[in-house]
């Protein structure tokens, strides 16, 4: 599904990702944890195609294609989805209208006919129900005036409608109350399938009680310094990140 080879990324001449290797197979869920400012959102943005970030070296393969050659909308149409850490407000543009435009752009890319209004509304109702999205939010402008939790839930709702192959959830759990966390997690779990992969970025092991990952990676200072199974998350919860060294030279000397 996705393979990163020695990915280096800089912004304004500052190197933020310093050689990431990662392989995610179809159907797998990978969690990425790590301290604030370690580069998790940067990784998500680069994969989604944000242009401000400069890939200085390395390679990314997505479904066998060179991902870095594609612009952001093509990546999305090919099935890459990012649930933003900070979802953006788009005043004046209705949530449903927005989503229909998005879905039909994706369908067109796949050679499918556009969904008509009736079929689309049915789909929207069905998916809104999965994440228990307040129907009023469908009628409002995209994220405008949404509470923090509503924005996160709306992201998962978008994901449910667009049915991506690879979904990257950037701290979708932060800002959610306990019930919402459960509902959103169930929403994610209901979308798990052998063809769909997830990258779940989080600070809290709690989320991983609901969404059971296949692997957990620790990103620190732009490098993956530790990988393991779900028990790694428990260990991080108990011990923090200090015991992990970010400098590979020091690590080797130990």
């Amino acid at each position: 599904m996705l393979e990163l080879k020695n990915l280096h990324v800089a912004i304004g001449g500052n190197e933020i990702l310093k050689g990431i290797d990662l392989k995610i197979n179809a159907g797998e869920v990978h969690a990425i944890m790590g301290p604030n400012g370690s580069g998790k959102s940067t990784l998500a943005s680069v994969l989604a195609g944000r242009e401000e970030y400069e890939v200085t070296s390395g390679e990314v393969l997505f479904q066998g294609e060179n991902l870095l050659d594609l612009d952001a909308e093509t990546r999305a149409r090919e099935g890459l989805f990012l649930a933003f850490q900070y979802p953006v407000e788009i005043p004046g543009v209705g949530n449903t209208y927005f989503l229909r435009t998005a879905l039909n752009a994706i369908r067109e890319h796949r050679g499918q006919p556009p969904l008509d209004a009736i079929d689309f509304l049915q789909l929207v109702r069905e998916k809104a129900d999965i994440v228990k999205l307040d129907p009023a939010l469908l009628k409002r402008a995209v994220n405008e005036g949404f509470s923090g939790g509503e924005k996160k839930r709306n992201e998962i709702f978008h994901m449910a409608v667009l049915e991506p192959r690879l979904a990257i959830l950037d701290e979708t759990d932060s800002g959610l109350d306990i019930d919402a966390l459960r509902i959103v997690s169930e929403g994610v779990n209901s979308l798990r399938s052998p063809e769909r992969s997830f990258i779940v970025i989080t600070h809290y092991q709690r989320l991983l009680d609901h969404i059971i990952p296949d692997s957990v990676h620790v990103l620190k200072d732009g490098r993956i310094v530790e990988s393991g199974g779900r028990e790694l998350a428990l260990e991080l919860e108990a011990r923090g990140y200090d015991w992990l060294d970010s400098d590979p030279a020091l690590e080797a000397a130990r």
Partner: protein
Amino acid sequence: MTDSTTMLEELASREYEHGFVTDIEQETFPPGLDEDVVRAISAKKNEPDWLTQWRLKAFRHWQTMEEPTWPKVDYDPIDYQAISYFAAPKKLLESLDEVDPEILATYKKLGIPLDEQKALAGVAVDAVFDSVSVATTYKDKLAEEGIIFCSFSEAVQDHPDLIRKYLGSVVPHTDNFFAALNSAVFSDGSFVYIPKGVRCPMELSTYFRINAPNTGQFERTLIVADEDAHVSYLEGCTAPQRDENQLHAAVVELVALDRAKIKYSTVQNWYPGDKETGVGGIFNFVTKRGICGEESKISWTQVETGSAITWKYPSVILKGDHSVGEFYSVALTAGRQQADTGTKMVHLGKNTRSTIISKGISAGKGQNSYRGLVKVAKGADNARNFSQCDSMLIGSECGAHTFPYIEIRNPSAQMEHEATTSKIGEDQIFYCNQRGISTEDAVSMIVNGFCKEVFKELPMEFAVEAQKLLGVSLEGSVG
């Protein structure tokens, strides 16, 4: 993709499609303006002496006036002696069958609906080719209701009393530099009269088109809605690509007598000039004003996407008690376009109300100014105004400016003013891209959302047209 976005996409991929030139024999005056030219125009149109004198009075006054410099627009001085003041197709025609097939073909390219289908859609079209009307449709159906809808020149011949009574009654020839010029040399335009108590059964629509090189276009429109009459009027225009600046100084006068309603909608799409240099764009200096009797209502809705320079303040004089004035505007400036537009609401009567909704969009190196005046006279008890002026910026090289003026002479007036400025952010575009939506569609979507309150005031088919125009006009404005 939705219908409107695919449409936008398709349109966005075209160059300025109306930029073609029709080859038709013109009888055109040589450049220059003096009293003889004014007289010649009048003679050409077989006008009565009082009108010739009216033109001459305007011309003499114009000569004493200075071109205004207060608008926030920048252009090379206009040489009024280098302009030709009259152009007409060789002969006047009675019916569509007589119209030159080439003109008809041009209309087709422009999508001007002169055929039966449009009748079914309920629109009558008085098409103006250059300065002289060459075709008028559905006059008969309107005539049944006693409605007059014809070219201005025809009205001068057939309804001289109405013209004499109302011409210049809302915009006097002394009003401003461009109105004075128009009064002296106006070529043609439209005249509408709706008799007492009649509700016009269809939208009245006129398409204008500049098509002769070096010819100033001086339209004159007069709409009179008698007591209790209702009318909705649509005006839209396109123009072919030219290398010289073309001056357009139109005057529109609306008279709404007691309890009458006039709704005037415009989609303005004159050639905006070269994207990089601005060369060839239309200079659009328009005076539009309406006057309200008691309990009457005048509503201006405009979507201004074209022209190199737009200078235009559709206004309402709320003379009658309980009268209502509305102004809904979208003005878009991209490339090198400059717009200085807004409205004047003059409250004279008691319990008068006005609403102003202005949406300015600037992209590229465009400059967009809202200029508005709300005036409440001493005797205008309980006047109310609501104004909302929103600006949207796309990119960092454009500008938006607001100049709201308020003059209140009566303490009972209630004024409300809101203003916002927003920018289409990289973040918003990226968010849309990440959902599979192209940048162009994202911008159209955001801009159309921004303009929603104005578009909903437009008649249905115009609203669709307006959305298309915004998409086309913004093409290439966003990286």
